[in-house]
């Protein structure tokens, strides 16, 4: 697999699978009907909860987030970061909202906003937000958004989801996504750690600990639930994308699930092959936040284990732990062939999101 070569970034077409737009509360309120518009604009009790963790450490880490609100900001980012095709999502994880109807209203509002402000007048690609509190309504929303050419997947935060996302109650969502040819994109979230792991959220004393575990725990729980419930076997034409937990957890999970499956097959009888095969056949993994081993060879082996058919580049811009393209590309350029590099930066996401570029 290894081959050392040098490539000019300008010659490479790059797809970024994880770009977040920042939506102010007052802005999303404009897209909501009553009573939720007023409950955001007028209520003294904030509808959007905060965990109280200081993610930016009193301002030591710069805020790229608050001002990243419009199409011009995305254009500037593309030019600064050499991104040809950003795949945009509305970020807000909707699983945390206790009121099902509020979650459904927010889902539709974020999608209306995405179309209205980002997709209707620009050629960006986007993901349709989905909330799972009412799966049948979510499926209707997937059908509605599935008609939009620039919508290339559905977007689900993996935080605050109860029951876990593979639960059969969510099958209408997966069926609708498969029917519409849209992959399901799962995104982990640090600030929402408090909803999934409240004891640890309370017990940890600094955000370092939360940030280390939040995204991978949510993504592992989701992958375990999907495989254990046989979701990829139930919907064999559906693809699943995992963002924002890096890549090291994926080999660990494939191998661990293989082991447990072989001991407990009769408990998960929908599976017709090993968990690793399902992951390799139907799952894709975003690179960010790429781990930082002290020895570069360790990352080379990790990327080799995953392979160029699974791995896709992601920045997570404008969030504070975003990755520049160079973070992944330094390994790709040094250790991998140009064909493998092209796959990871372009062809694999084209396949995952069925892009017609």
């Amino acid at each position, binding site marked *: 697999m290894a081959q050392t070569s040098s490539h000019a970034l300008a010659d490479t077409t790059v797809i970024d699978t994880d770009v977040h737009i920042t939506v102010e509360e007052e802005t999303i309120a404009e897209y909501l009907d009553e009573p939720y518009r007023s409950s955001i604009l007028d209520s003294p009790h904030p509808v959007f909860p905060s965990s109280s963790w200081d993610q930016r450490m009193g301002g030591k880490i710069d805020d790229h987030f608050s001002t990243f609100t419009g199409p011009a900001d995305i254009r500037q980012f593309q030019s600064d970061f050499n991104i040809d095709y950003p795949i945009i999502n509305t970020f807000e994880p909707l699983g945390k909202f206790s009121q099902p109807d509020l979650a459904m209203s927010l889902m539709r509002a974020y999608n209306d906003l995405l179309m209205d402000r980002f997709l209707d007048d620009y050629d960006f690609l986007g993901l349709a937000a989905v909330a799972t509190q009412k799966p049948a309504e979510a499926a209707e929303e997937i059908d509605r958004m599935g008609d939009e050419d620039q919508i290339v997947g559905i977007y689900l935060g993996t935080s605050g989801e109860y029951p876990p996302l593979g639960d059969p109650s969510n099958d209408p969502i997966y069926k609708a996504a498969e029917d519409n040819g849209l992959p399901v994109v799962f995104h982990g979230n640090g600030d929402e750690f408090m909803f999934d792991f409240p004891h640890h959220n309370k017990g940890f004393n600094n955000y370092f600990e939360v940030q280390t575990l939040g995204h991978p725990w949510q993504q592992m729980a989701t992958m375990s639930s999907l495989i254990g419930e046989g979701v990829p076997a139930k919907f064999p034409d559906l693809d699943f994308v995992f963002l924002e937990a890096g890549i090291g957890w994926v080999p660990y999970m494939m191998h661990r699930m293989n082991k447990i499956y*072989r001991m407990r097959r009769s408990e998960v*009888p929908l599976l017709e092959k090993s968990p690793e095969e399902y992951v390799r056949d139907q799952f894709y993994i975003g690179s960010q936040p790429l781990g930082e081993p002290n020895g570069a060879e360790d990352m080379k082996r990790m990327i080799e284990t995953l392979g160029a058919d699974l791995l896709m580049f992601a920045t997570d811009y404008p969030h504070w732990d975003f990755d520049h393209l160079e973070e992944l590309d330094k390994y790709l350029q040094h250790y991998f062939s140009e064909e493998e590099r092209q796959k990871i930066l372009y062809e694999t996401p084209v396949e995952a999101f069925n892009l017609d570029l």
Partner: protein
Amino acid sequence: MSEHTVSTVDEIQDGERKLVEVEGREIAIFRLDGEFYAYTNWCAHQGGPACEGSVTGTRNAEFDREELETDLEWCKEDEILNCPWHGWEYDIPSGDCLSRDGTKLPGHPVKVEEQEIIVSL
């Protein structure tokens, strides 16, 4: 290959098994629906004594995509051997492992001649 008489037919009732030692190897003879099957007592997982495990049925499932319903079915009663170390399932008639493609119990040809069970090793 050498032939070894390991038992008489009467010694193994249908649904039962007998463990014997042949050329220093532990061999299990299973009788199921009148047929005899012989396997080395060695699990492909970690070398556990697979042939000493429980014999049960197992579960299969089918998914109805229109109704979004999963139908669980208990099947192959008395045909599934479960390794006592970690529960890997083997199909007694074929020796196939149910949870790992291409993996089998090491099987041996069996024949019955004049009420005697003969295994070839």
